């Protein structure tokens, strides 16, 4: 484990290079370039706001500042789902490198995760610009955001390692992932607060670290504090366990990649 971390550290420049390449290629030859990064959260926010405003307005339990609520949820969720969906096939897509050149293969799924950070930063900047229009004050609580994002990155990176490796051995993984990630979004408080619909209480959903992560993010933005410290701590625990499990398993199986791909 220590050796594998050391090796990844030695190849950090490569990791940086791959992230840069990903970003460059994603918006190369597009008309509006990097603006695509905020295009879909904004569009979806407009759609969800207009659809849901009909039956949330005026009722009890209506969500205040719903557009902000949806937008912040989507921004965080897209960082998660976008990273994973490019990570799941990243090893298979780079099979010529995997079978021909030696370097720690971890850099592939990790670069898939890190390269989505730029999109997220832009989405975050737009969110901060939106705040005054919804009369939300900017507070010191926003400083929680880096911590929350770090926890989310750990969780995402762990899953990215496992998924990319899983898909290398069994191509079914990608298809399973595609369905699961959609269901997962609806089992997370992205477009509605999860408590308002869950009949299962919180038992099963407590295992979903994305709920406390998104809730914590919203707390930091809207209330200027870490609103749910205990669930968030639990989520952090799950996130780092996932990361270490991912790294350990990946390192253990790495030498089989070239012949099984």
């Amino acid at each position, binding site marked *: 484990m220590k050796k594998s971390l050391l090796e990844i550290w030695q190849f950090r420049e490569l990791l940086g*290079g791959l992230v840069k*390449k990903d970003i460059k290629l994603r918006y190369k030859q597009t008309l509006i370039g990097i603006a695509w990064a905020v295009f879909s959260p904004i569009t979806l926010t407009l759609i969800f706001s207009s659809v849901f405003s009909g039956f949330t307005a005026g009722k009890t339990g209506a969500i205040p500042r719903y557009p902000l609520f949806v937008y912040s949820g989507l921004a965080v969720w897209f960082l998660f789902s976008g990273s994973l969906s490019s990570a799941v096939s990243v090893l298979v897509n780079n099979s010529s490198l995997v079978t*021909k*050149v030696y370097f720690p293969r971890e850099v592939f799924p990790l670069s898939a995760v890190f390269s989505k950070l730029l999109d997220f930063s832009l989405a975050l900047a737009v969110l901060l610009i939106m705040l005054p229009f919804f009369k939300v004050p900017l507070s010191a609580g926003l400083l929680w955001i880096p911590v929350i994002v770090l926890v989310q990155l750990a969780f995402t990176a762990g899953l990215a390692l496992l998924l990319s490796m899983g898909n290398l051995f*069994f191509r079914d993984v990608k298809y399973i992932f595609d369905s699961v990630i959609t269901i997962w979004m609806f089992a997370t408080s992205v477009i509605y607060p999860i408590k308002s619909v869950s009949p299962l209480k919180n038992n099963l959903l407590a295992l979903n670290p994305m709920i406390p992560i998104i809730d914590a993010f919203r707390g930091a933005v809207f209330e200027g504090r870490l609103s749910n410290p205990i669930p968030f701590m639990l989520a952090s625990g799950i996130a780092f366990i996932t990361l270490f499990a991912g790294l350990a398993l990946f390192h253990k199986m790495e030498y089989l990649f*070239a012949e099984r791909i």
Partner: protein
Amino acid sequence: MQNAIEFIGVSKRLIKGERATSLRDLLSESIGRLFGKSRKENPDAFWALKGLNLQVQAGESIGFIGENGAGKTTMLKLIAGIMKPNEGELKVSGRVASLIELGAGFHPDLTGRENIYLCGSIMGMKMTAIKEAFSSIVSFAGIEEFLDTPVKRYSMGMFVRLGFSIAMHLDTDIMLIDEVLAVGDLNFQAKCRDALDRFKESGKTIVFVSHDLGSVLSLCSKVVWLSKGKIIEAGDPQKVVNAYISHSEGTSESSLKLRRDGAWAAGYDPANVVREPRGLAVSPEGEVYAASMQGHCVAVFSPSGKLIKAIGTAGIGEGKLYSPAGVAVNGNVVFVSDVSGACVQKFTREGVFTGAFRGSFGEPFGLCVSGKDSLIVTDRRLFKVFELSREGRMVNVFGGKGSGDGEFDFPVAAAIDGKGFLYISDLNNHRVQVFDPERKFIVSFGSFGSGDEEFNGPHDLAIRGNTLFVADHLNSRVKRYDISAVPGKPELTGVFGLERSMLPCGIAFGPGSELYLTFGGTELIGKYLAG
């Protein structure tokens, strides 16, 4: 001496064909095991390497030869750490760089500049090291003008040159090279070889896998012959290569065969006179004249294959040869074209220098004497064909760079038939062009490919009567045409397959029906009998 690489009983099992990578197979297998069925052996599995024991000392350059599927590439992948052995132990000390596939790390949409940084770091270079080596990488590859062009718009040659150039700038202890030297044009190949020589001199370990026996011989101090995952023979390069050649001749697959004359099994000589022989000429008495590019002379052999003498001494100037490529014998005169000396020189058959034609040559390469007593010289740098009188007066010049009729891209050989028609092999256009006695273009044949009617770098030509032989360099074949229909199209009458690793360059008829061949990058001259 310290061992750089040590194989101790290393075995590696691989699986042929498509791998079963669906969850269904995994599930059915685990359910089967649950019910006590023993795990069944995968019928597609085979041992790519079996019980390999080998030591490679630091600073040694070791070559691996053997037919496809012998386990050479698997072995490189084990050394590189891409795979792990199933059995045995493999110790590697030092940093390893693998040149297994050039340009594998390139992304087509990124520019040359961006790819240098990306590919360099994939190969393990530090950013500062890449910055330092950057201009050297670019100039070695010769892509200065195309630095900011996406590599998807590069020609294959540029792509490969850039890949090789990056690899040559890696700071590493062990370099793994798999079949990469037969790339690019001849100039670049020479550059690559120089770079590898320097690499070798700096005390680094080279592991070289190639079908090009000539490169193996010139680069390696030890050669290992692998077959079906096992070592057949290891040790002295010349000995192992000879054993391999005589073995593979017996297993050649072509329908038509050229039989190697035993006495001419190898023209290799310890005096290093024959290094990279190109052009060939045979006197009516059966003496063989071979222009030795790297031996800086024309080596002369008796009909039985004994080295008699060397014409010319190394250098540039009168009577000196630097890289002689073409040779023609006419009466008592031996004409030699010297690529680097940019001239054609005349010697007597005894080896006395009698004159030089300088003209306005760039890189004179191919050479033949026409019936009209004139001399035809192909110039591979000016893409032109010159016709000179015996006194050296320019009679006619034609050609120019291009791929149209009468244009050339690397004209490397000329031959003239009894009716005065001139045949020029146009290497990079992968065709042979035919000109009438007035040197007007009539017909061309061949295109790029590996089919019977196709060429991959056609080299020298030899004509006797109505028979034309073409050395199809990178296809490892010699092709026979009937040219009685010329000015109509010549008709293909035979394809002679050689061992895959033998890349024929020069070709000439002996006084009988025998055929002499030289091979790219080797020290070999072969004498063949058709049938």
